């Protein structure tokens, strides 16, 4: 039943890892020139499947057929030769090199520099992705960096382009540009396998969708004709409730930042410039912004990893700028950073170890310095249960968990310590819809119980969903926080660009 329309036919692909079957008898087909969505929760097996197609993983069973030919790439270069290209969620670019140099590094036989520069210009113009070959990657925005990766793929004239969570780092305007490019590619006959958690995007862009759950194909649909809610429910096989925020009673101001300026720590860092804001009890303050505009620097100041002048950060009226993370935890300021592996968690250590990492003080897990391992394991199990972390147990290494499950663990670890102020950077970055809903609900509940929250996120929908007030950071400066109610996407776009929508309206 092979029709000539089929570009890639996946038939019975199975891949098992010790203790978990990542893909079980997965079969579907991608037609030429279609935009095909791959949907599923974290741990549903999307990554493994995509890696199989790209030659990074060898399946235990099953076959793939590319354009009528047997297709079993042993490594990514074989996949690329066969016309399969991939843009990863995490960019693999060198900051100190130029765009052209970065692209040349990824090629088997790079052409001469001048020829390559011309090709880059041609491709980027043809697909509406403005990109100068001679600029240094360190100076580019996240959206521009993604263009480098896409152009690198397009130079190989792929027949199938795989995109893993491409919009997680983009502004709404940049998403529009990307979608135009993808639609153009699809019209020219390039098939696109599109992985995303943002169901609205999939509905706007994709022709068909295959839904994975626990490593199996559980259905397919035409996204345009299916509601986002139905798709989400197919993914999790359960009714999904969207978190609802009650406009809570806001109490007194608990945390204030005033006149905070900080020079950039490194060449590629961002300087913070005269930042001022405050948070009240029971309030969630959302901080938007495109990646690399000072979010990491701001987070480090709030968590205490970077110390500042005492008065620039105040908690319950007292200056805390000189306090480190440990001292801040003692008074109730807790934080969960963006990067899960290596910052929020130590990947090679167990979940119990990772629970001890930030909960030792408040949960009294090491009285007098002596670790109460029974208590540590009990607390880790409590977080695992309370936040529905899918893992064999507290002894599992953190790095063995899928991104969404580890994220639930690191957020849960802080939420369950009863913080007075919780700072979260990218709470649901790379996390599937069900886990994201779970995390957001927990954050809202925490605020309702009287905690103050600061949520730094690049996901505007998320900010709109949970924040009471929203501000944005752009090139190390912060715009004035505004009530979330009544903000439009256009307002947000202006704020991400560092402008105040009200002033714009007046002007």
């Amino acid at each position, binding site marked *: 039943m092979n029709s000539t329309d089929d570009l890639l036919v996946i038939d019975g692909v199975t891949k098992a890892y010790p203790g978990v079957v990542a893909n079980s008898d997965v079969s579907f087909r991608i037609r030429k020139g279609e935009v095909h969505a791959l949907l599923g929760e974290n741990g549903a097996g999307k990554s493994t499947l995509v890696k199989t197609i790209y030659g990074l993983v060898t399946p235990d069973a099953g076959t793939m057929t590319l354009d009528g030919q047997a297709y079993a790439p*042993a490594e990514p270069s074989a996949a690329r030769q066969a016309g399969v290209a991939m843009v990863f969620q995490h960019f693999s670019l060198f900051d100190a090199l130029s765009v052209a140099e970065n692209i040349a590094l990824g090629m088997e036989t790079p052409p001469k520099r001048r020829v390559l520069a011309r090709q880059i210009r041609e491709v980027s113009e043809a697909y509406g992705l403005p990109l100068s070959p001679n600029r240094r990657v360190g100076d580019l925005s996240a959206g521009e960096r993604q263009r480098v990766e896409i152009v690198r793929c397009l130079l190989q004239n792929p027949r199938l382009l795989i995109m893993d969570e491409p919009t997680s780092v983009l502004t709404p305007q940049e998403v529009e540009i990307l979608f135009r490019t993808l639609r153009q590619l699809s019209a020219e006959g390039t098939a696109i396998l599109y992985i995303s958690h943002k169901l609205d995007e999939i509905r706007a862009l994709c022709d068909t969708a295959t839904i994975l759950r626990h490593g199996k194909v559980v259905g397919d649909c035409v996204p345009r004709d299916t509601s986002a809610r139905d798709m989400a429910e197919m993914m999790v096989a359960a009714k999904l409730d969207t978190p609802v925020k009650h406009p809570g009673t806001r109490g007194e101001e608990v945390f204030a930042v005033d006149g905070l300026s900080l020079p950039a720590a490194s060449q590629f860092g961002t300087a913070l410039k005269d930042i001022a804001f405050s948070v009240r009890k029971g309030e969630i303050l959302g901080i938007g912004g495109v990646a690399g505009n000072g979010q990491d620097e701001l987070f480090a100041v709030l968590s205490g990893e970077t110390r500042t002048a005492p008065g620039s950060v105040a908690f319950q009226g007292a200056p805390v700028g000189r306090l480190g993370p440990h001292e801040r935890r003692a008074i109730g300021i807790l934080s969960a950073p963006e990067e899960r592996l*290596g910052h929020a968690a*130590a990947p*090679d250590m167990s979940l119990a170890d990772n629970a001890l990492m*930030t909960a030792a003080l408040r949960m009294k897990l090491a009285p007098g310095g002596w670790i109460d391992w029974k208590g540590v394991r009990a607390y880790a199990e409590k977080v695992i249960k309370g936040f529905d972390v899918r893992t064999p147990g507290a002894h599992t290494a953190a790095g063995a968990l899928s991104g969404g499950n580890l994220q639930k663990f690191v957020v849960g670890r802080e939420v369950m310590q009863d913080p007075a102020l919780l700072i979260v950077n990218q709470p649901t970055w790379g996390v599937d819809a069900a886990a994201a809903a779970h995390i957001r609900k927990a954050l809202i509940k925490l605020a309702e119980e009287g905690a103050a929250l600061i949520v730094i996120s690049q996901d505007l929908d998320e900010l709109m969903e949970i924040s009471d007030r929203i501000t944005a950071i752009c090139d190390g400066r912060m715009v004035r926080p505004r009530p979330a109610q009544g903000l439009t996407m256009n307002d947000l776009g202006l704020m991400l660009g560092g402008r105040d929508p009200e002033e714009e309206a007046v002007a």
Partner: protein
Amino acid sequence: MIRLERRPAPSKNWTYLAPLLAVATTMAVGAIMFALLGKDPFLAIKTIFWDPIFSPQFGSYSRPQLLVKAGPLILIAIGLSLGFRAGIWNIGAEGQYIMGALAGAAVALAVYPMELPVLLPLMVIAGALGGWAWAMIPGFLRTMFNTNEILVSLLLVYVAEQILAAASVGFLRNPEGGGFPGSRNLQSYPSAHNAEIIANSGIHWGVVAALISVIAAYVLLQRHILGFHIKLAGEAPRAAKLAGVNPARLILFCMGVSGALAGMAGLFEVAGPAGKVSIDFGAGYGFTAIIVAFLGRLHPVGILLAGLLMALTYIGGELAQLMLSLPAAAIQAFQGMLLFFLLAFDVFSHYRLRLAPGRAA
């Protein structure tokens, strides 16, 4: 085609298997080397690993020697392992060992010939302080000026060797020694002598200290938050910072402990088996302890076993030089192989070997 695939989590089995395989491979490859040197490989391996313990002819001499050699190796390696766990690389234990010996011996020589019951304990404290102070130099420079502690601690070994030479011919020289270099012999100064606790067993206070250090390090790493922070800093430095670990304090602690333990090892040696400060006092224990620390997986119990094994190759190696006239360099190459193969087999605790099919047809 063979390729390496990263394991989702490090393999527990390989962590334990790697040292055993490294020993076995070292024996096999060492045997080939000995054969190429024209010696009987089986006899050579037997002389190194078997005879020091079981030979009726040498056993009574070399069995106590085993503990005498293993003691300082274990004591130094335990200290180094704490820093290595945290990603703090003190490579200069040899220098701290020498400075500890000098500081401790200087205390004894200053009060000679007074008999004081507390003299040996005082010397131990002085020895620990001497090593601690020497290790604080790279520690302090690292925390203040972000210098590289590997280079600074290593270069300070050569400074320490110069001071040792100066002491042997100068300020610590035996005034009744007829102008020969070297200090008074502490073995003949009862209050200062780190004598065997049980005659002919090789057990002196340094061996006891080594055992105590093994237990203390085990308890620290398994039960105490400080040990946890040491491990965390090594595994994920940013996570450690988030947990509230102060990197500067951790560096000073790890450098200080490793320096103090190396200094104590030096003192026990100079007041016991060596007996006196002499130009050739530094015997390379500080460097060999690095191998011991890694061979023992930076784990206290592993280090205990690795220290005994390393001491065995020392004594067996000497025996092989004596009996089979193997060159000393061959023995050193043999010991080096051990670390080499260990690091090679270590790859498998993080990666698995896969036989991948060839390119797509």
